[in-house]
Structures are given as structure tokens and as C-alpha cells.
């Protein structure tokens, strides 16, 4: 187990339906994507939970700030969260 997993830090894509988490950071070099996520509320401390998955498990809908955001797992893996 890595150090980060011990801290309860996983990626958004690893989140299970019953779990609640807080955004830690976005890990990507794609600044356009990063800015887009930030303006959608994906910033340090925002609470997020998994709302539901598409028929084939990808993409998934997350709930944050009271709204629903659809993301592919490939993108969700770039977002680090701390499970509460």
C-alpha cells in the first residue's frame, strides 16, 4: 500500500457509491482541463460523492455542490480525493 492510500487519498475514479470524499488536487498538465474543472467547483475541500455509473461503468456521474457532473474515468483518475 502506498503512502497516499494510507492517508485515504485515492482518485475520484476509485470512489465507491457509499463513500464521501473531499477534493485534494487535480493532477494533470492539461491546463485547459484543469481550469475547466476548477471553475466547476473541483477545488481543494469541495465535497464529492459518486452518484451513478453509465451502463458500462464509464462515464460516471458525481454529485458536488448540489449538482451532477458527468466525467469519464480517464479524467476522474486525474483528480485526487480524500475519502472521509
Amino acid at each position, binding site marked *: 500500500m502506498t503512502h497516499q492510500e494510507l492517508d485515504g487519498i485515492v482518485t475520484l475514479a476509485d470512489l465507491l457509491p457509499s463513500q464521501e470524499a473531499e477534493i485534494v488536487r487535480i493532477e494533470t498538465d492539461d491546463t485547459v482541463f484543469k*481550469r475547466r474543472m476548477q471553475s466547476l467547483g473541483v477545488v*481543494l475541500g469541495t465535497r464529492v460523492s459518486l452518484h451513478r455509473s453509465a451502463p458500462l461503468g464509464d462515464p460516471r456521474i458525481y454529485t458536488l455542490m448540489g449538482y451532477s457532473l*458527468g*466525467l469519464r474515468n480517464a479524467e476522474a483518475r486525474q483528480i485526487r480525493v480524500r475519502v472521509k
Partner: protein
Amino acid sequence: MKSPVTVALVGNPNAGSSSLFSALTGVQVAIANYPRVTTELASQDVTHKGVALRIIDVPGIFSTSSRSPEELVGCDFIRRGEADIIVNVLDGGNLDRSLFLSSQLIETGRPRVTVLNMIDEVRKAGIRLDHAMLASALGSPVVETCALRKEGVEALLDAIVQVATNPPPQPMRLHYDQHLEGAIDRIQGHMVTLHGAMDGHRARWLAIKLLEGDEQLLRGEAEHAELIEEIKREQNSLTHEHDEDSAGLLAAARFAFSNGLLREVRHHDGDVSAGFNATRLLDDFFLNRTLGLPLLLGILWVMFQTTFSLGAIPTDWIKAGVELATTYVDGALPPGMFHDLVIDGVMAGVGGTIVFLPNIVILFFFMAILSGTGYIARASFLMDRVMHHFGLHGTTLIPMVAGFGCNVPAVMATRVITNKRARLIAMLIAPFMNCSARLPVYILFAGAFFADIAGTVVFAMYMASIGAAMLSAVVLNRIIPGSGGDAFVMELPPYRLPTLHSVLHHMWDSAQGFVAKVTGVILVGSVVIWFLQEFPRDIAYTQDFGAAIEEQEAQPDGPEKDKALKVLKSKQAQEKLEGSYLGRASIAVTPLFEPLGFTWRDSAAIMTGFVAKEVVVATYAVIFAQEEESDDLTEALRGAMAPATAIAFMIFTLLYAPCLSTIAIIGKESNSWRWAGFSVAYSMAFAWTMSLIVGSVSKLLL
């Protein structure tokens, strides 16, 4: 005070700016319940209490410093600072996310009016908002509206005029933590030394944007190497200290501001999640992991089945009306060329096309329901994985569904796609989406050859159109150099009930558009086709039909005589058509289509359909009216073609060359006529191949 006062409606995508624009100005613009329906600025002047206002609808943005191309129009507009007053439209049920943009708009220093839109949903959810506190924290008047029901419009106009006549003396200022404030101060100081005296708020706004990394503004300062150096230094030291870049820190600070504000002003009465649950319940059903995709298909099937079967009833009335009119005109006009032009050209072509009006209106009714309820966003969510396999993107579904109406807005709607190459591919597959212009062809052919399962055949043609788009995406992904897809980022709005007004408007609009086309391009087309099939008149017939007919006429009456006369006349008409300009041109290209089983009539229909695909039906109508074998187009068609060939022809019509308007818009949106030309060549080759395959398989099966 400036006149007119420029008032910009700025809000998140799907916050209702366009609905509000319509409510304020009375000008109906496209509205739906999914993000990014509006892609261009819209402007309209109104006068309220003697003050001239220029209302501008700005395409939705999440942030004024966005670098996503779909937000460029909105961001550039804010950056240019053209708005005298900013009306910040907030989705009342989504304040947590919307106030982020508000915090950026505050920093522009412009006088603002804050609108809490969709206030009915907020009330239904049992939420109370403290207006007075919100107004003082945001430094602007706060107005509640429900744009779709035109509630609060007067109050909003009053507030706009109030702000225009008495602008707030001191713009608001947001405070950040000391590290950020220090960096902003130092950059601002540097700017002032460089550019001399600057308006304090403008300088602070610029400093914040530069620190945030706004590329366009940084480019504007590129000549000041020292300033750029300084900005980089500040950015690096912030990143080093906080383990997050400056833009991220500013974003987090802005959300902290909005969270704090909402804790103060928002109060819940009773059941907190009542409103949210309806959407959750519906999503349990529509986004169900096993049921979701079959449901999507089922919904589409019902849509096309109803479009066909329900449309048949009023179609019969229109048909009867057209027949009545034709009989009347037939009697009223003296025999001669003008009579023939009107009856066999105009009445046949226009009358043969206008009968599809009910089908088109019904199709647009369904499209209005799908886009107005928020189901389209779900559909793209459900389909993303499948489309990803074909190198496409879930959001490509939105232009694709728009393509069911017309390919031209579909090509424009590809602006929701960020990646340039992905957008180009989406643009090139958009013409394969079955636009409503092709619907008459399918309804005619399906009704003629597969009357029992016509609705399903029409549905199958739409599925084939999606299949063709997917297959082409795979091919194009290989042909077009480069790589890279696009992130699927899509907000799913709550389900909403579209208003009767917006649905009716959608249907009325489509009806008007169709009638305009029929009385325009179809009318002209029918006249041109009639002349092309009527001339030249000096045709070398294989026999002297005039004499032969006279000889028959002299025979005693009886069924024998009638039959012989009919054969003679039909033979004459056939030879006349084949000798005409239309016939000759069509016969010349027919070898190309012979492998597909098409005759010269079909080639003629295909060639004329280049202009607009409705002309395909009009061409058949004019040709068959001339041949006079049967009064009914359906019957005539059944006599002229085998069912397998009919399928091949429908496939060909679906796929071959986009119409002229679509070719033009591809050229414009891709900024290259080469791609427009490519689109024509590619779709012709694709249509030919697919039509051959499908036709051959059908021949074996039928």
C-alpha cells in the same frame, strides 16, 4: 449616461440567460434544457421608462478566464469590457457553483444586477434566500425571476434602469489571503509604473487575471519582459508555498467566498431534498444500468413510429386538398404549355412535398420534448462509452441529435467539442445524420414498399444514419492525421417540464421553415425540372405515335382499345422523357448507378437532390406526373422499382453528398473549402459502397 446602455446577460451555461433574453426583449431564441445551446451573441434594443437599453445575450460561461473554445465568445466579450451593466444570471437552484462566476464579475468593476433565475424551483425545494444580505455582499441589486414564465421581468428592467441612472459609487472588492493579496499588489504596482495612471479597479482586475494566467492578457503584455518575469516569479512562489498553482488558489478562494456567503443567506425550510428527488427518481429509471440503453432506443422508436403513423392522418387531408386544387386548376387553365407547367411541374412538385409537413412538425415536437426536459444530456451520458469506441465523444451526440432536424445547425453545434480534430470529425459525420429533409423520401418509400412496417423502416433508417456516422468516425479517425480526444465533462441538469409555449414555438418554427423551403427551393426546383424534362421537343421517336394513336382511336370502343391506347401513350411519354435534357443527362450518369439497380429516373432524383434533399421527392413527382401511368406517386413508384432497390435508394439518399447549405457551413466552420470538398467526395463514395452492399443483401433476403 450612454444611449443605448449596453446590458449583458451573463451566466453559467443552462442558467437561463437566453430564456431571460426572450422574456426581456420578446425575441424568441433557441432554448433547451442542456448546456451550451447558445453559441453566439444575440442583441436586441428595448426601451424601459424612457431609457434605451441594448440587451445582449452572452453564451454561457463558467469562468471569465476559461480557455475552452466553447467559452471563448463569452470570455472575449467580458474581456473587451463593452458592457455598461452586467446582469449576472444565476440558476437559483445552483448557487454554490454559479457564485464563482459572480466573484469574477464583481472584479470587473462594472455595475451589476444579480438575477436569481428559476426561483420557482428554489421555492419548491423549500429554500429561502436573504435578499438584503445577498445584495449587500455582492454589491448589486438582487432580483428574482422565473424567465420561462416571464415572472420578475418588470422588476429586473426597473433594477437595470435604476443602476443605469444611479451607478453604485464604489465598486465592490473581494479580499484574498495575505499571500495572494501580496502577489496581486506587487503585480498591480508594476503595472501602474509601466502604464502610468490607471483606474484602480481596472489595474487590480488586470493584475488578478495576469496572476491567474490569462493567456490573452499575458500576450498583450508580452513586450514587458520584466512584468512577465515578475508574474512568473509570483506564480512559482505561490505554487511552491501552497502546493497548488495560482489559478487553483484563486479558484479555491472564490469558492470559499461563495460558500461563506451562502451559509449566511440561504435557509432551508422543511424537506431539503424534495426537488432533487424527482430528478433522482427519474434518473433511477432513465439511467438504469440495464434499462438505460434499451429505453433510449425505445424512446427513439416511439418517436419515429409516431412521426410516421400520426403524421399519416393530416397528410391524407393535405393530399385531398392538393388533389382538389389540382382538379380546379386543371379545369380553370386553358390547355397548353402553361397548364402543363402548373399541373405537372408546380402542383406535382410542391404538392408532392407539402404533404410531409405534418411528419416534420411531429418530429420537431419530439425534439423539443427531448431537449427541453433534459433527456438529451442523459442520452449523451449513456452513449459516451459506446461512442468512445468509435473514437467519438459523448457530447458529439448533441450535434448529432440536432442533425435530425437539420445538418446546418448540427455543424454549428460541434462548437461544444473542444479538441480541433475531434470537432472536424464531428463536423464531417454530421451530414450523415438524417435531417428532416430526408424524412419525406423515407416516408414515401417506406409507405410504398413496406406499408405494414413503415414506422419501423423509418426508425431503421435513423439507426442506419447513426451507424453510418459511427462507421465514418472510425474511418476518419484513421485518415485524418493527429490524435487526441476530448474530455467528457457534462453537467446533467435537473429534469424540467418544457413550457407549452416553447414546444409550440419549436413546432411553428419548423413548419414555417418547411413551408418556406417548399415555396422557395422546391417550387423553383419543380419548375426547372419540368422544363428540363419537357425540352427539347424535337425528339426522334421510334415510331409515329401520333398516327398510331389516331389509328387506335378509330377502332370500336372496348377494353382492348383502352389498353392499347394506354400502352401507346405511356411508351410515347417514356421516349419523350428519355429524350429530354433531364433524361439525357440522367441516362449519361446512369451507368455509374447501374450496379446499384437505379434507373435514369433515380439518377435524376439523385442529381437534383444535391440542391436540397426534399427535391428528390419533387423530382419523382414531376417525372411520374408526366408519365401519367398512375395518379398516385406511391403506386407509380411501386411499379417502377423492386423493394430491394428501394432500400438501396433510401440508403443512397441517406448518405450521399450533403445539401448545398451544409457544404457551405462545413466550409465556413472548418475554415477550409478543402474539407467541404472532401465531405462531398467521401460521402459519395461511402453512399455508393453502402448502397451496393445493402442492396445486394436485401435482394438475397427479400
